[in-house]
Protein backbone atom coordinates (compact mmCIF):
# COMPACT_ATOMS: atom_id res chain seq x y z
CA UNK A 1 0.00 0.00 0.00
CA UNK A 2 1.42 3.35 -1.02
CA UNK A 3 1.26 6.39 1.22
CA UNK A 4 -1.93 8.41 1.34
CA UNK A 5 -1.86 11.92 -0.09
CA UNK A 6 -5.34 13.00 0.95
CA UNK A 7 -7.66 11.45 3.42
CA UNK A 8 -11.22 12.72 3.87
CA UNK A 9 -13.29 11.47 6.81
CA UNK A 10 -16.98 12.15 7.29
CA UNK A 11 -16.64 15.31 5.22
CA UNK A 12 -19.88 17.29 4.83
CA UNK A 13 -20.76 20.67 3.46
CA UNK A 14 -24.30 21.93 3.84
CA UNK A 15 -25.70 25.15 2.43
CA UNK A 16 -28.91 25.86 4.30
CA UNK A 17 -30.96 22.79 3.43
CA UNK A 18 -28.77 21.53 0.58
CA UNK A 19 -26.24 18.81 1.31
CA UNK A 20 -23.60 19.65 -1.29
CA UNK A 21 -21.25 17.07 0.20
CA UNK A 22 -22.67 14.41 2.43
CA UNK A 23 -20.45 12.43 4.86
CA UNK A 24 -17.71 11.66 2.41
CA UNK A 25 -14.93 9.16 3.17
CA UNK A 26 -12.15 9.05 0.62
CA UNK A 27 -8.46 8.17 0.41
CA UNK A 28 -6.33 9.30 -2.49
CA UNK A 29 -2.93 7.66 -2.88
CA UNK A 30 0.37 9.43 -3.38
CA UNK A 31 1.15 9.98 -7.06
CA UNK A 32 -2.31 8.99 -8.19
CA UNK A 33 -4.22 10.63 -11.04
CA UNK A 34 -7.60 10.78 -9.37
CA UNK A 35 -10.75 12.08 -11.05
CA UNK A 36 -13.99 13.24 -9.55
CA UNK A 37 -16.69 12.81 -12.15
CA UNK A 38 -20.30 13.87 -11.94
CA UNK A 39 -23.00 16.16 -13.30
CA UNK A 40 -23.05 19.79 -12.21
CA UNK A 41 -24.33 20.15 -8.68
CA UNK A 42 -23.13 16.67 -7.70
CA UNK A 43 -20.67 18.07 -5.15
CA UNK A 44 -17.40 17.30 -6.91
CA UNK A 45 -16.26 20.92 -7.16
CA UNK A 46 -17.26 21.56 -3.54
CA UNK A 47 -14.99 18.69 -2.47
CA UNK A 48 -12.15 20.29 -4.42
CA UNK A 49 -12.79 23.68 -2.83
CA UNK A 50 -12.90 22.08 0.60
CA UNK A 51 -9.50 20.46 0.01
CA UNK A 52 -8.10 23.78 -1.28
CA UNK A 53 -9.50 25.61 1.73
CA UNK A 54 -11.88 27.99 -0.05
CA UNK A 55 -14.81 26.50 1.82
CA UNK A 56 -15.08 25.39 5.43
CA UNK A 57 -16.65 21.98 5.97
CA UNK A 58 -19.80 21.65 8.05
CA UNK A 59 -18.35 18.46 9.52
CA UNK A 60 -15.48 16.03 9.01
CA UNK A 61 -11.71 16.22 8.58
CA UNK A 62 -9.25 16.73 5.75
CA UNK A 63 -5.81 15.20 6.23
CA UNK A 64 -3.07 16.06 3.80
CA UNK A 65 -0.22 13.56 4.13
CA UNK A 66 0.20 13.60 7.89
CA UNK A 67 -1.27 17.05 8.58
CA UNK A 68 -4.83 17.75 9.56
CA UNK A 69 -5.53 20.88 7.49
CA UNK A 70 -9.28 21.05 8.09
CA UNK A 71 -9.19 24.47 9.79
CA UNK A 72 -6.23 25.96 7.93
CA UNK A 73 -6.58 28.85 5.44
CA UNK A 74 -5.76 28.15 1.78
CA UNK A 75 -2.27 29.68 2.02
CA UNK A 76 -1.24 27.26 4.77
CA UNK A 77 -2.02 24.09 2.79
CA UNK A 78 0.43 22.25 0.59
CA UNK A 79 -1.96 22.10 -2.36
CA UNK A 80 -2.30 24.24 -5.46
CA UNK A 81 -5.25 24.75 -7.73
CA UNK A 82 -5.67 25.16 -11.46
CA UNK A 83 -8.87 27.16 -11.77
CA UNK A 84 -11.56 26.61 -14.34
CA UNK A 85 -11.09 30.15 -15.69
CA UNK A 86 -7.32 29.94 -14.97
CA UNK A 87 -7.30 33.18 -12.89
CA UNK A 88 -4.01 34.31 -14.44
CA UNK A 89 -3.11 37.69 -12.90
CA UNK A 90 -3.74 40.16 -15.74
CA UNK A 91 -1.28 42.76 -14.45
CA UNK A 92 1.71 40.42 -14.45
CA UNK A 93 3.76 38.82 -17.22
CA UNK A 94 3.69 35.06 -17.74
CA UNK A 95 6.97 34.69 -15.84
CA UNK A 96 5.76 36.86 -12.95
CA UNK A 97 2.62 34.78 -12.76
CA UNK A 98 4.60 31.55 -12.57
CA UNK A 99 7.03 33.04 -10.04
CA UNK A 100 4.24 34.30 -7.81
CA UNK A 101 4.01 31.34 -5.44
CA UNK A 102 7.78 31.35 -4.89
CA UNK A 103 7.85 35.11 -4.50
CA UNK A 104 5.32 35.16 -1.67
CA UNK A 105 7.20 32.31 -0.01
CA UNK A 106 10.34 34.48 -0.09
CA UNK A 107 12.36 32.20 -2.36
CA UNK A 108 15.49 34.02 -3.64
CA UNK A 109 15.32 35.81 -6.95
CA UNK A 110 17.78 33.55 -8.78
CA UNK A 111 16.24 30.27 -7.67
CA UNK A 112 12.79 31.65 -8.36
CA UNK A 113 13.75 32.48 -11.91
CA UNK A 114 15.33 29.08 -12.55
CA UNK A 115 12.39 27.14 -11.17
CA UNK A 116 9.83 29.27 -13.01
CA UNK A 117 11.68 28.72 -16.27
CA UNK A 118 11.77 24.99 -15.61
CA UNK A 119 8.04 24.96 -14.97
CA UNK A 120 7.42 26.89 -18.20
CA UNK A 121 9.58 24.35 -20.04
CA UNK A 122 7.47 21.53 -18.59
CA UNK A 123 4.38 23.03 -20.20
CA UNK A 124 6.36 23.97 -23.37
CA UNK A 125 5.99 27.73 -22.95
CA UNK A 126 9.68 28.68 -22.52
CA UNK A 127 9.53 31.36 -25.16
CA UNK A 128 6.43 33.02 -23.70
CA UNK A 129 7.91 34.19 -20.39
CA UNK A 130 7.75 37.90 -21.22
CA UNK A 131 4.23 37.86 -22.68
CA UNK A 132 1.24 39.45 -20.99
CA UNK A 133 -1.72 37.14 -20.28
CA UNK A 134 -4.02 38.90 -22.76
CA UNK A 135 -1.60 38.01 -25.56
CA UNK A 136 -2.11 34.29 -24.97
CA UNK A 137 -4.62 31.85 -26.41
CA UNK A 138 -6.94 29.82 -24.16
CA UNK A 139 -4.73 26.75 -24.35
CA UNK A 140 -1.63 28.77 -23.51
CA UNK A 141 -3.31 30.38 -20.51
CA UNK A 142 -4.27 26.94 -19.35
CA UNK A 143 -0.61 25.93 -19.49
CA UNK A 144 0.47 29.05 -17.59
CA UNK A 145 -2.04 28.20 -14.86
CA UNK A 146 -0.59 24.70 -14.73
CA UNK A 147 3.01 25.96 -14.58
CA UNK A 148 2.10 28.50 -11.91
CA UNK A 149 0.75 25.70 -9.73
CA UNK A 150 3.44 23.08 -10.50
CA UNK A 151 6.34 25.43 -9.75
CA UNK A 152 5.49 25.21 -6.04
CA UNK A 153 5.89 21.41 -6.11
CA UNK A 154 2.75 20.93 -4.04
CA UNK A 155 1.86 17.64 -2.44
CA UNK A 156 -1.40 17.64 -4.38
CA UNK A 157 -2.50 19.52 -7.47
CA UNK A 158 -6.20 20.28 -7.72
CA UNK A 159 -7.64 20.81 -11.19
CA UNK A 160 -11.15 22.27 -11.53
CA UNK A 161 -12.43 21.37 -15.00
CA UNK A 162 -9.28 22.90 -16.48
CA UNK A 163 -10.02 21.76 -20.03
CA UNK A 164 -13.65 22.88 -20.07
CA UNK A 165 -12.99 26.11 -21.98
CA UNK A 166 -10.89 24.53 -24.72
CA UNK A 167 -12.12 23.26 -28.08
CA UNK A 168 -12.38 19.53 -28.64
CA UNK A 169 -9.12 19.01 -30.51
CA UNK A 170 -7.07 21.00 -28.03
CA UNK A 171 -8.83 19.26 -25.17
CA UNK A 172 -7.83 15.84 -26.47
CA UNK A 173 -4.21 16.97 -26.85
CA UNK A 174 -4.16 18.45 -23.37
CA UNK A 175 -5.63 15.28 -21.88
CA UNK A 176 -2.66 13.28 -23.11
CA UNK A 177 -0.21 16.01 -22.17
CA UNK A 178 -1.62 16.41 -18.65
CA UNK A 179 -1.27 12.69 -18.10
CA UNK A 180 2.36 12.84 -19.30
CA UNK A 181 3.16 15.82 -17.09
CA UNK A 182 1.62 14.09 -14.11
CA UNK A 183 3.77 11.01 -14.68
CA UNK A 184 6.82 13.21 -15.12
CA UNK A 185 6.43 15.30 -11.94
CA UNK A 186 4.93 12.50 -9.84
CA UNK A 187 2.53 14.83 -8.03
CA UNK A 188 -0.91 13.61 -6.99
CA UNK A 189 -3.52 15.10 -9.34
CA UNK A 190 -7.12 15.51 -8.27
CA UNK A 191 -9.09 16.28 -11.38
CA UNK A 192 -12.69 17.47 -11.43
CA UNK A 193 -14.68 16.97 -14.61
CA UNK A 194 -18.18 16.35 -15.89
CA UNK A 195 -16.78 14.76 -19.06
CA UNK A 196 -16.76 10.98 -18.68
CA UNK A 197 -14.43 10.46 -21.63
CA UNK A 198 -11.88 12.80 -20.04
CA UNK A 199 -12.07 10.95 -16.74
CA UNK A 200 -11.71 7.54 -18.38
CA UNK A 201 -8.78 8.66 -20.57
CA UNK A 202 -6.56 10.10 -17.88
CA UNK A 203 -7.33 8.63 -14.50
CA UNK A 204 -5.91 5.87 -12.37
CA UNK A 205 -9.13 5.88 -10.41
CA UNK A 206 -12.44 7.70 -10.81
CA UNK A 207 -15.02 8.62 -8.18
CA UNK A 208 -18.47 9.13 -9.68
CA UNK A 209 -20.41 11.75 -7.71
CA UNK A 210 -24.15 12.07 -7.41
CA UNK A 211 -26.01 14.33 -4.97
CA UNK A 212 -23.07 14.87 -2.66
CA UNK A 213 -22.08 11.20 -2.41
CA UNK A 214 -19.78 8.86 -4.26
CA UNK A 215 -21.82 6.39 -6.31
CA UNK A 216 -18.83 4.33 -7.34
CA UNK A 217 -15.08 4.50 -6.86
CA UNK A 218 -13.18 2.36 -9.34
CA UNK A 219 -10.62 2.19 -12.14
CA UNK A 220 -11.86 3.38 -15.56
CA UNK A 221 -12.11 -0.21 -16.83
CA UNK A 222 -14.16 -1.39 -13.85
CA UNK A 223 -16.34 1.68 -14.05
CA UNK A 224 -17.21 1.00 -17.65
CA UNK A 225 -17.38 -2.77 -17.54
CA UNK A 226 -19.02 -3.15 -14.13
CA UNK A 227 -21.04 -0.07 -13.22
CA UNK A 228 -22.38 -0.39 -9.70
CA UNK A 229 -25.62 1.49 -10.21
CA UNK A 230 -28.03 2.64 -12.89
CA UNK A 231 -26.71 6.19 -12.35
CA UNK A 232 -23.11 5.20 -13.08
CA UNK A 233 -24.14 3.03 -16.02
CA UNK A 234 -26.06 5.97 -17.47
CA UNK A 235 -23.45 8.62 -16.75
CA UNK A 236 -20.37 6.73 -17.89
CA UNK A 237 -20.97 5.85 -21.52
CA UNK A 238 -24.34 4.92 -22.98
CA UNK A 239 -26.09 1.88 -21.64
CA UNK A 240 -29.32 -0.02 -21.99
CA UNK A 241 -31.12 -0.73 -18.76
CA UNK A 242 -33.64 -3.50 -18.16
CA UNK A 243 -35.53 -3.78 -14.91
CA UNK A 244 -38.79 -5.22 -13.61
CA UNK A 245 -41.04 -6.90 -16.20
CA UNK A 246 -38.57 -6.27 -19.08
CA UNK A 247 -35.76 -7.91 -17.11
CA UNK A 248 -37.88 -10.98 -16.43
CA UNK A 249 -38.84 -11.32 -20.08
CA UNK A 250 -35.48 -10.51 -21.71
CA UNK A 251 -33.00 -11.84 -19.16
CA UNK A 252 -35.20 -14.32 -17.39
CA UNK A 253 -34.24 -13.07 -13.94
CA UNK A 254 -35.28 -10.59 -11.26
CA UNK A 255 -33.31 -7.37 -10.85
CA UNK A 256 -31.77 -4.66 -12.97
CA UNK A 257 -29.37 -5.33 -15.83
CA UNK A 258 -27.24 -3.26 -18.14
CA UNK A 259 -25.91 -4.05 -21.60
CA UNK A 260 -23.54 -1.70 -23.46
CA UNK A 261 -24.58 -0.69 -27.02
CA UNK A 262 -21.45 -2.16 -28.61
CA UNK A 263 -22.14 -5.59 -27.12
CA UNK A 264 -25.43 -6.00 -28.95
CA UNK A 265 -25.71 -7.71 -32.36
CA UNK A 266 -28.33 -6.61 -34.84
CA UNK A 267 -29.60 -9.09 -37.47
CA UNK A 268 -32.57 -9.55 -39.73
CA UNK A 269 -33.31 -13.00 -38.23
CA UNK A 270 -32.45 -14.84 -35.07
CA UNK A 271 -29.27 -16.96 -35.31
CA UNK A 272 -29.65 -20.75 -35.40
CA UNK A 273 -27.73 -21.37 -32.20
CA UNK A 274 -28.97 -19.18 -29.34
CA UNK A 275 -27.25 -20.95 -26.45
CA UNK A 276 -25.80 -18.42 -23.99
CA UNK A 277 -27.54 -15.57 -25.79
CA UNK A 278 -30.45 -13.29 -25.07
CA UNK A 279 -32.72 -12.83 -28.06
CA UNK A 280 -34.99 -9.81 -28.44
CA UNK A 281 -37.01 -8.94 -31.53
CA UNK A 282 -38.03 -5.37 -32.23
CA UNK A 283 -38.46 -2.53 -34.75
CA UNK A 284 -35.77 -0.02 -35.81
CA UNK A 285 -36.86 3.45 -34.81
CA UNK A 286 -33.83 5.55 -35.66
CA UNK A 287 -30.46 5.25 -37.37
CA UNK A 288 -27.78 7.79 -36.42
CA UNK A 289 -24.60 8.02 -38.43
CA UNK A 290 -21.65 9.07 -36.23
CA UNK A 291 -18.71 8.78 -38.62
CA UNK A 292 -16.76 5.88 -37.20
CA UNK A 293 -19.84 4.17 -35.81
CA UNK A 294 -23.54 3.94 -36.46
CA UNK A 295 -26.08 4.00 -33.65
CA UNK A 296 -29.38 2.22 -34.15
CA UNK A 297 -32.29 2.72 -31.81
CA UNK A 298 -34.57 -0.31 -31.58
CA UNK A 299 -37.94 -0.52 -29.85
CA UNK A 300 -38.15 -4.04 -28.45
CA UNK A 301 -41.41 -5.98 -28.46
CA UNK A 302 -40.73 -6.55 -24.75
CA UNK A 303 -41.05 -2.81 -24.10
CA UNK A 304 -37.70 -1.06 -23.59
CA UNK A 305 -35.86 0.90 -26.25
CA UNK A 306 -32.30 -0.24 -26.88
CA UNK A 307 -29.40 1.59 -28.49
CA UNK A 308 -27.06 -0.53 -30.58
CA UNK A 309 -23.68 0.76 -31.69
CA UNK A 310 -21.57 -0.74 -34.49
CA UNK A 311 -18.29 0.28 -36.08
CA UNK A 312 -18.68 1.15 -39.74
CA UNK A 313 -16.07 -1.42 -40.73
CA UNK A 314 -18.01 -2.94 -43.61
CA UNK A 315 -21.48 -1.46 -43.37
CA UNK A 316 -22.52 1.35 -45.65
CA UNK A 317 -24.63 4.15 -44.26
CA UNK A 318 -27.18 3.65 -47.06
CA UNK A 319 -27.74 0.05 -46.03
CA UNK A 320 -28.00 1.08 -42.40
CA UNK A 321 -30.55 3.81 -43.18
CA UNK A 322 -32.70 1.35 -45.10
CA UNK A 323 -33.25 -0.55 -41.88
CA UNK A 324 -35.47 2.19 -40.51
CA UNK A 325 -38.89 0.78 -39.54
CA UNK A 326 -37.74 -2.75 -40.39
CA UNK A 327 -38.17 -5.66 -38.00
CA UNK A 328 -34.86 -6.89 -36.58
CA UNK A 329 -33.60 -9.29 -33.96
CA UNK A 330 -31.12 -8.20 -31.30
CA UNK A 331 -28.85 -10.70 -29.59
CA UNK A 332 -26.24 -10.35 -26.88
CA UNK A 333 -24.22 -12.67 -24.75
CA UNK A 334 -25.62 -13.40 -21.35
CA UNK A 335 -22.17 -12.94 -19.75
CA UNK A 336 -21.98 -9.40 -21.15
CA UNK A 337 -24.92 -8.36 -19.02
CA UNK A 338 -24.04 -6.42 -15.90
CA UNK A 339 -26.28 -7.03 -12.93
CA UNK A 340 -26.80 -3.88 -10.85
CA UNK A 341 -26.98 -4.12 -7.10
CA UNK A 342 -30.27 -2.33 -6.67
CA UNK A 343 -32.81 -2.23 -3.98
CA UNK A 344 -35.54 -4.57 -5.31
CA UNK A 345 -38.65 -2.52 -4.86
Amino acid at each position, binding site marked *: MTATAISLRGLSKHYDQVRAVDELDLDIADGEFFSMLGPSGSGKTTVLRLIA*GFEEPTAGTIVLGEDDVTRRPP*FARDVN*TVFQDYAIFP*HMSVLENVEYGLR*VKKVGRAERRTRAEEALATVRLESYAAR*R*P*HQLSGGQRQRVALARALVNRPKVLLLDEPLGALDLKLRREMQIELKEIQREVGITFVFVTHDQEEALTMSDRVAVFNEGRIEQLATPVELYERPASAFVAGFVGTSNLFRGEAARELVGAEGAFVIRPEKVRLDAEAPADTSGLCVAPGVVREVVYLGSTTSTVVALDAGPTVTVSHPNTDTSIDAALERRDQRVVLTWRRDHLVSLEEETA
Partner: protein
Amino acid sequence: MLSHGLRRSLTAVTAVVLVIVYIPLALVLLNSFNTDNTFGWPPPGLTLHWWHVAWESQGARDALWTSVRVALAATALALVLGTLAAMGLRRTRFFGRNVVSLLIILPIALPGVVTGLAFQNGFRTILGIDLSLWTIVIAHATFCIVTVFNNVQARFQRLGGNFEQASMDLGAGRWTTFRLVTFPMLRSALLAGALLSFGLSFDEIVVTTFTASPQDQTLPIWIFQNLFRPNQAPIVNVVAAVLVIFSAIPIYLAQRLSGASTEGLTGAR
Protein backbone atom coordinates in the same frame (compact mmCIF):
# COMPACT_ATOMS: atom_id res chain seq x y z
CA MET B 1 -28.85 50.70 -37.16
CA LEU B 2 -29.88 54.31 -37.38
CA SER B 3 -31.32 55.65 -40.58
CA HIS B 4 -29.43 58.39 -42.36
CA GLY B 5 -31.99 61.10 -41.59
CA LEU B 6 -32.26 60.16 -37.93
CA ARG B 7 -28.50 60.21 -37.56
CA ARG B 8 -28.38 63.69 -39.07
CA SER B 9 -31.01 65.10 -36.75
CA LEU B 10 -29.29 63.48 -33.75
CA THR B 11 -26.02 65.13 -34.81
CA ALA B 12 -27.77 68.47 -35.09
CA VAL B 13 -29.45 68.18 -31.67
CA THR B 14 -26.17 67.17 -30.06
CA ALA B 15 -24.42 70.13 -31.66
CA VAL B 16 -27.10 72.58 -30.44
CA VAL B 17 -26.93 71.20 -26.89
CA LEU B 18 -23.14 71.42 -26.82
CA VAL B 19 -23.23 74.99 -28.13
CA ILE B 20 -25.80 76.03 -25.52
CA VAL B 21 -23.68 74.49 -22.75
CA TYR B 22 -20.29 75.71 -23.83
CA ILE B 23 -20.86 79.18 -25.36
CA PRO B 24 -21.46 80.82 -21.95
CA LEU B 25 -18.39 79.05 -20.57
CA ALA B 26 -16.33 80.27 -23.50
CA LEU B 27 -17.66 83.80 -22.87
CA VAL B 28 -16.44 83.66 -19.27
CA LEU B 29 -13.01 82.61 -20.47
CA LEU B 30 -12.95 85.29 -23.16
CA ASN B 31 -14.14 88.03 -20.80
CA SER B 32 -11.29 87.22 -18.45
CA PHE B 33 -9.10 88.74 -21.20
CA ASN B 34 -11.50 91.61 -22.01
CA THR B 35 -9.99 95.11 -21.63
CA ASP B 36 -13.45 96.57 -20.98
CA ASN B 37 -14.47 95.91 -17.37
CA THR B 38 -18.16 96.19 -18.22
CA PHE B 39 -17.71 93.41 -20.79
CA GLY B 40 -18.81 95.33 -23.87
CA TRP B 41 -19.32 93.26 -26.97
CA PRO B 42 -17.29 92.79 -29.08
CA PRO B 43 -14.31 93.13 -26.73
CA PRO B 44 -12.43 96.31 -27.57
CA GLY B 45 -9.15 94.57 -26.80
CA LEU B 46 -7.49 91.64 -25.02
CA THR B 47 -5.35 91.86 -21.90
CA LEU B 48 -3.71 89.68 -19.25
CA HIS B 49 -4.30 92.44 -16.72
CA TRP B 50 -7.18 90.72 -14.87
CA TRP B 51 -5.23 87.50 -14.58
CA HIS B 52 -2.45 89.49 -12.99
CA VAL B 53 -4.87 91.23 -10.61
CA ALA B 54 -6.53 87.96 -9.71
CA TRP B 55 -3.16 86.39 -8.98
CA GLU B 56 -2.36 89.31 -6.69
CA SER B 57 -5.72 89.02 -4.90
CA GLN B 58 -5.09 87.47 -1.49
CA GLY B 59 -8.76 86.49 -1.13
CA ALA B 60 -8.83 84.52 -4.37
CA ARG B 61 -5.52 82.82 -3.61
CA ASP B 62 -6.65 81.81 -0.14
CA ALA B 63 -9.90 80.50 -1.55
CA LEU B 64 -8.06 78.44 -4.17
CA TRP B 65 -5.77 76.96 -1.52
CA THR B 66 -8.73 76.15 0.73
CA SER B 67 -10.57 74.41 -2.11
CA VAL B 68 -7.51 72.36 -3.01
CA ARG B 69 -7.01 71.29 0.60
CA VAL B 70 -10.68 70.39 1.08
CA ALA B 71 -10.83 68.43 -2.18
CA LEU B 72 -7.63 66.53 -1.40
CA ALA B 73 -8.68 65.65 2.13
CA ALA B 74 -12.22 64.65 1.11
CA THR B 75 -10.80 62.52 -1.69
CA ALA B 76 -8.32 60.79 0.62
CA LEU B 77 -11.11 60.02 3.08
CA ALA B 78 -13.37 58.81 0.27
CA LEU B 79 -10.64 56.54 -1.13
CA VAL B 80 -10.13 54.70 2.14
CA LEU B 81 -13.79 54.47 3.14
CA GLY B 82 -15.15 53.82 -0.37
CA THR B 83 -12.68 50.98 -0.97
CA LEU B 84 -13.35 49.41 2.40
CA ALA B 85 -17.11 49.63 1.86
CA ALA B 86 -16.88 48.03 -1.58
CA MET B 87 -14.64 45.24 -0.28
CA GLY B 88 -16.85 44.63 2.73
CA LEU B 89 -20.01 44.44 0.69
CA ARG B 90 -18.41 42.12 -1.81
CA ARG B 91 -16.98 39.60 0.63
CA THR B 92 -20.01 39.11 2.79
CA ARG B 93 -23.58 38.36 1.91
CA PHE B 94 -25.84 39.45 4.67
CA PHE B 95 -29.42 40.43 5.10
CA GLY B 96 -29.91 44.06 4.06
CA ARG B 97 -26.79 44.16 1.91
CA ASN B 98 -28.60 46.01 -0.87
CA VAL B 99 -29.98 48.51 1.62
CA VAL B 100 -26.47 49.34 2.84
CA SER B 101 -25.31 49.70 -0.75
CA LEU B 102 -28.18 52.09 -1.47
CA LEU B 103 -27.45 54.11 1.67
CA ILE B 104 -23.85 54.59 0.55
CA ILE B 105 -24.85 55.78 -2.93
CA LEU B 106 -27.79 57.95 -1.82
CA PRO B 107 -25.87 61.10 -0.69
CA ILE B 108 -24.92 61.92 -4.29
CA ALA B 109 -28.61 62.19 -5.18
CA LEU B 110 -29.79 64.04 -2.06
CA PRO B 111 -30.44 67.78 -2.52
CA GLY B 112 -27.40 69.73 -1.35
CA VAL B 113 -29.58 72.08 0.70
CA VAL B 114 -30.89 69.17 2.74
CA THR B 115 -27.48 67.56 3.22
CA GLY B 116 -25.96 70.92 4.09
CA LEU B 117 -28.64 71.83 6.62
CA ALA B 118 -28.52 68.38 8.16
CA PHE B 119 -24.76 68.57 8.58
CA GLN B 120 -24.86 72.06 10.01
CA ASN B 121 -27.47 70.99 12.51
CA GLY B 122 -25.57 67.78 13.27
CA PHE B 123 -22.23 69.49 13.79
CA ARG B 124 -23.28 72.54 15.72
CA THR B 125 -26.43 71.62 17.61
CA ILE B 126 -26.03 67.92 18.22
CA LEU B 127 -22.26 67.45 18.43
CA GLY B 128 -21.40 70.99 19.49
CA ILE B 129 -18.50 71.26 17.04
CA ASP B 130 -17.51 74.61 15.51
CA LEU B 131 -17.57 74.73 11.74
CA SER B 132 -14.11 74.52 10.20
CA LEU B 133 -12.21 73.17 7.25
CA TRP B 134 -12.79 69.68 8.59
CA THR B 135 -16.55 69.99 8.73
CA ILE B 136 -16.45 70.81 5.00
CA VAL B 137 -14.18 67.82 4.38
CA ILE B 138 -16.51 65.42 6.20
CA ALA B 139 -19.60 66.75 4.44
CA HIS B 140 -17.88 66.50 1.04
CA ALA B 141 -16.61 63.01 1.78
CA THR B 142 -20.20 61.73 2.06
CA PHE B 143 -20.81 62.22 -1.63
CA CYS B 144 -17.18 61.76 -2.74
CA ILE B 145 -17.28 58.21 -1.34
CA VAL B 146 -19.89 57.36 -3.95
CA THR B 147 -17.55 57.82 -6.92
CA VAL B 148 -14.86 55.65 -5.34
CA PHE B 149 -17.35 53.06 -4.13
CA ASN B 150 -19.02 52.78 -7.53
CA ASN B 151 -15.76 52.50 -9.43
CA VAL B 152 -14.28 49.91 -7.09
CA GLN B 153 -17.48 47.91 -6.97
CA ALA B 154 -17.75 47.87 -10.76
CA ARG B 155 -14.15 46.70 -11.00
CA PHE B 156 -14.72 43.91 -8.49
CA GLN B 157 -17.77 42.79 -10.41
CA ARG B 158 -15.79 42.58 -13.62
CA LEU B 159 -12.86 40.80 -12.04
CA GLY B 160 -14.72 38.13 -10.09
CA GLY B 161 -13.21 36.63 -6.98
CA ASN B 162 -10.87 34.01 -8.38
CA PHE B 163 -7.74 36.16 -8.55
CA GLU B 164 -7.61 36.58 -4.79
CA GLN B 165 -8.37 32.93 -4.24
CA ALA B 166 -5.60 32.03 -6.67
CA SER B 167 -3.19 34.27 -4.77
CA MET B 168 -4.04 32.70 -1.42
CA ASP B 169 -3.90 29.26 -3.00
CA LEU B 170 -0.33 30.04 -4.08
CA GLY B 171 0.62 30.79 -0.49
CA ALA B 172 0.03 34.53 -0.11
CA GLY B 173 -1.62 35.75 3.09
CA ARG B 174 -4.46 38.26 3.07
CA TRP B 175 -2.32 41.39 3.25
CA THR B 176 0.15 40.15 0.60
CA THR B 177 -2.80 39.28 -1.61
CA PHE B 178 -4.18 42.79 -1.25
CA ARG B 179 -0.78 44.36 -1.92
CA LEU B 180 0.24 42.24 -4.93
CA VAL B 181 -3.07 41.32 -6.54
CA THR B 182 -6.14 43.25 -5.35
CA PHE B 183 -4.63 46.72 -5.18
CA PRO B 184 -2.82 46.63 -8.56
CA MET B 185 -6.03 45.49 -10.22
CA LEU B 186 -7.99 48.25 -8.50
CA ARG B 187 -5.43 50.96 -9.18
CA SER B 188 -6.97 52.53 -12.26
CA ALA B 189 -10.46 52.31 -10.75
CA LEU B 190 -9.20 54.05 -7.61
CA LEU B 191 -7.51 56.76 -9.65
CA ALA B 192 -10.64 57.36 -11.72
CA GLY B 193 -12.74 57.48 -8.56
CA ALA B 194 -10.31 59.86 -6.90
CA LEU B 195 -10.23 62.26 -9.85
CA LEU B 196 -14.02 62.37 -10.04
CA SER B 197 -14.18 62.85 -6.30
CA PHE B 198 -11.71 65.74 -6.48
CA GLY B 199 -13.78 67.35 -9.21
CA LEU B 200 -17.00 66.97 -7.22
CA SER B 201 -15.57 68.50 -4.08
CA PHE B 202 -13.66 71.28 -5.80
CA ASP B 203 -16.69 73.05 -7.27
CA GLU B 204 -19.31 72.18 -4.63
CA ILE B 205 -21.10 75.24 -3.23
CA VAL B 206 -24.43 74.35 -1.60
CA VAL B 207 -23.28 71.88 1.06
CA THR B 208 -20.15 73.99 1.56
CA THR B 209 -22.22 77.10 2.33
CA PHE B 210 -23.78 75.33 5.31
CA THR B 211 -20.70 73.58 6.64
CA ALA B 212 -17.96 76.22 6.20
CA SER B 213 -16.98 78.73 8.82
CA PRO B 214 -16.73 82.36 7.61
CA GLN B 215 -12.90 82.08 7.61
CA ASP B 216 -12.84 79.00 5.37
CA GLN B 217 -13.91 80.29 1.98
CA THR B 218 -13.68 77.83 -0.87
CA LEU B 219 -13.30 79.11 -4.41
CA PRO B 220 -16.99 78.73 -5.40
CA ILE B 221 -18.07 80.60 -2.25
CA TRP B 222 -15.54 83.36 -2.93
CA ILE B 223 -16.93 83.73 -6.46
CA PHE B 224 -20.47 83.88 -5.18
CA GLN B 225 -19.65 86.57 -2.64
CA ASN B 226 -17.68 88.72 -5.09
CA LEU B 227 -20.04 88.30 -8.01
CA PHE B 228 -22.07 91.41 -7.27
CA ARG B 229 -19.21 93.74 -6.38
CA PRO B 230 -18.78 95.70 -9.61
CA ASN B 231 -15.04 96.24 -9.32
CA GLN B 232 -14.41 92.56 -8.66
CA ALA B 233 -16.30 91.29 -11.72
CA PRO B 234 -13.25 90.91 -14.00
CA ILE B 235 -11.39 88.96 -11.31
CA VAL B 236 -14.40 86.71 -10.80
CA ASN B 237 -14.20 85.87 -14.49
CA VAL B 238 -10.59 84.82 -14.10
CA VAL B 239 -11.31 82.73 -11.02
CA ALA B 240 -14.28 81.11 -12.77
CA ALA B 241 -12.03 80.22 -15.69
CA VAL B 242 -9.53 78.64 -13.27
CA LEU B 243 -12.34 76.72 -11.62
CA VAL B 244 -13.50 75.33 -14.96
CA ILE B 245 -9.99 74.17 -15.79
CA PHE B 246 -9.42 72.63 -12.35
CA SER B 247 -12.68 70.69 -12.60
CA ALA B 248 -12.36 69.67 -16.23
CA ILE B 249 -8.86 68.19 -16.07
CA PRO B 250 -9.64 65.48 -13.47
CA ILE B 251 -12.86 64.51 -15.25
CA TYR B 252 -11.06 64.27 -18.57
CA LEU B 253 -8.30 62.13 -17.04
CA ALA B 254 -10.80 59.92 -15.22
CA GLN B 255 -12.68 59.30 -18.44
CA ARG B 256 -9.55 58.38 -20.38
CA LEU B 257 -8.41 56.17 -17.57
CA SER B 258 -11.56 54.11 -17.26
CA GLY B 259 -11.68 53.73 -21.05
CA ALA B 260 -8.10 52.51 -21.24
CA SER B 261 -8.37 50.14 -18.30
CA THR B 262 -11.55 48.55 -19.62
CA GLU B 263 -9.66 47.56 -22.72
CA GLY B 264 -6.68 46.18 -20.83
CA LEU B 265 -8.76 44.16 -18.45
CA THR B 266 -11.28 42.70 -20.80
CA GLY B 267 -8.43 41.64 -23.02
CA ALA B 268 -6.92 39.85 -20.08
CA ARG B 269 -9.88 37.73 -19.19
